[in-house]
């Protein structure tokens, strides 16, 4: 093995490159899938928590809503309030010891990261929904939409746009935090790196490579999400839906031409 730093790095990449790639792939699979499932959980919980309870509602409906909200609130607080590494140990080993459930390692990994992301996303989604101007809800109600329709077509699309940066944040946190799953034996990037480092006694070089890979993964994701956000915002420009130049002033006043230039 070469004696200088860069020489060792090249050597590690040449001989153990496959392990790093496999680790990185596993990390990304867990991060992406769990972020997605976490968002779904977060949306479900966030939506339930923002269902208005009205005075005139039936007693049973009120009781059920209160109970569900209490349970969801407890879920959010417990999973936000305890370390994921401890949860991973507790759930993976505890489920087989206490309940005799033999979770596969991968199922446990997806489960733990998803449910954690869900707990954080629930609060984010709630915030996103609350950030939408109440006028939007009133506008939707005024044309006869039900609560579900209002949420689905008016509020959630706007809330989703507003919380996109936070979803990106969660994805990046998940890419990094999957390393705690090494405690239950998932061969993700951290585990792979540690194995290489231990086998060849090259801690500094091995983790230097891991750091670079982690950074490339997170940086690429954050840029891609930025692009996606831009796409969601749509075009700044719009075309008048007519070819008749006279109708450009077909409002009742003719100042729109100027207004349009400003928009461009």
């Amino acid at each position, binding site marked *: 093995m070469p004696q200088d730093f860069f020489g060792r790095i090249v050597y590690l990449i040449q001989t153990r490159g496959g392990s790093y790639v496999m680790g990185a792939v596993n990390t990304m699979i867990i991060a992406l899938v769990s972020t997605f499932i976490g968002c779904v959980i977060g949306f479900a919980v966030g939506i339930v928590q923002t269902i208005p309870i009205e005075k005139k509602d039936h007693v049973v409906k009120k009781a059920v809503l209160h109970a569900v909200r209490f349970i969801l609130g407890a879920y959010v607080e417990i999973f936000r309030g305890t370390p994921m590494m401890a949860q991973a140990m507790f759930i993976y080993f505890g489920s087989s010891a206490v309940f005799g459930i033999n979770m596969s390692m991968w199922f446990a990994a997806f489960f733990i990261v998803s449910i954690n992301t869900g707990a954080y996303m629930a609060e984010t989604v709630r915030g996103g929904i609350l950030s939408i101007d109440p006028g939007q809800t*009133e506008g939707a109600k*005024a044309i*006869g939409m039900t609560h579900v329709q209002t949420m689905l077509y008016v509020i959630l699309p706007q809330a989703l746009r507003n919380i996109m940066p936070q979803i990106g944040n969660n994805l990046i946190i998940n890419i990094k935090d999957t390393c705690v799953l090494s405690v239950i034996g998932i061969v993700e990037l951290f585990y792979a790196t540690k194995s290489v480092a231990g086998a060849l006694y090259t801690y500094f070089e091995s983790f230097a490579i891991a750091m670079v890979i982690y950074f490339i993964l997170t940086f690429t994701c954050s840029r891609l999400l930025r692009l996606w956000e831009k796409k969601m915002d749509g075009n700044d420009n719009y075309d008048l839906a007519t070819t008749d130049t006279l109708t450009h002033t077909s409002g009742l006043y003719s100042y729109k031409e100027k207004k349009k230039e400003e928009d461009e």
Partner: protein
Amino acid sequence: MSEQVIKVNHLSKAFGKHVVLRDIDFSVSTGDVTCIIGSSGSGKSTLLRCLNLLETPTTGEILYHGENIADAHTDAPAYRAKVGMVFQSFNLFNNMSVLKNCMIGQIKVMKKDAESAKASALAYLEKVGMAPYINAKPRQLSGGQKQRVAIARALAMEPEVLLFDEPTSALDPQMVGEVLDVMKQLASEGLTMIIVTHEMAFARDVSNRVVYMADGVIEESGDPAQIFTNPQNQKTKEFLSRFMRG
């Protein structure tokens, strides 16, 4: 004789201990254009919002074709689909284009198919002079344009009554003109409208009934010519004299 559409009996509304509306009696028949005037905080908007069930009245009843809609069993969305509302702050859906704004209610609430919804959305947008702007998003429009789209969106639901909550209060004088022109046209076509407004000239010229409110009470109501030239109530006199002086 035109039919009575909405009749309000002894309506009161309190937010906590703060009483906003007291014992309101009021009715509207088909084809009526009713303007509600009065200073800010007099309860005009709250009354209008009660009529659309955006606020639940504390006591009293609101009869819609003789049926009380102020009780707990009313299907509020179904009722609102028939009584449209135009807001001071427009409340267009920011995530949709002008055309989608006018189609969504028809498709999701009236269950029309996309094609006929589009056709009628286009017809109403044409009417308010916004047809060329169907691809624009609300944030790309001026206030007057937004309000005209909001009117088209409400009209697309083919409402029996259209409520206007200070539709021109957030606009500059030029835009006020363009929105009022659209409303005048609607009035001339016989649409039943209830309008909360500070535009006294509009109230005088377009409406066939004016209601003056102060401190949550209807102080005077009647023919616009009579109210504006010969108000009977002392408060109405003072209010109008302030307005007429400018």
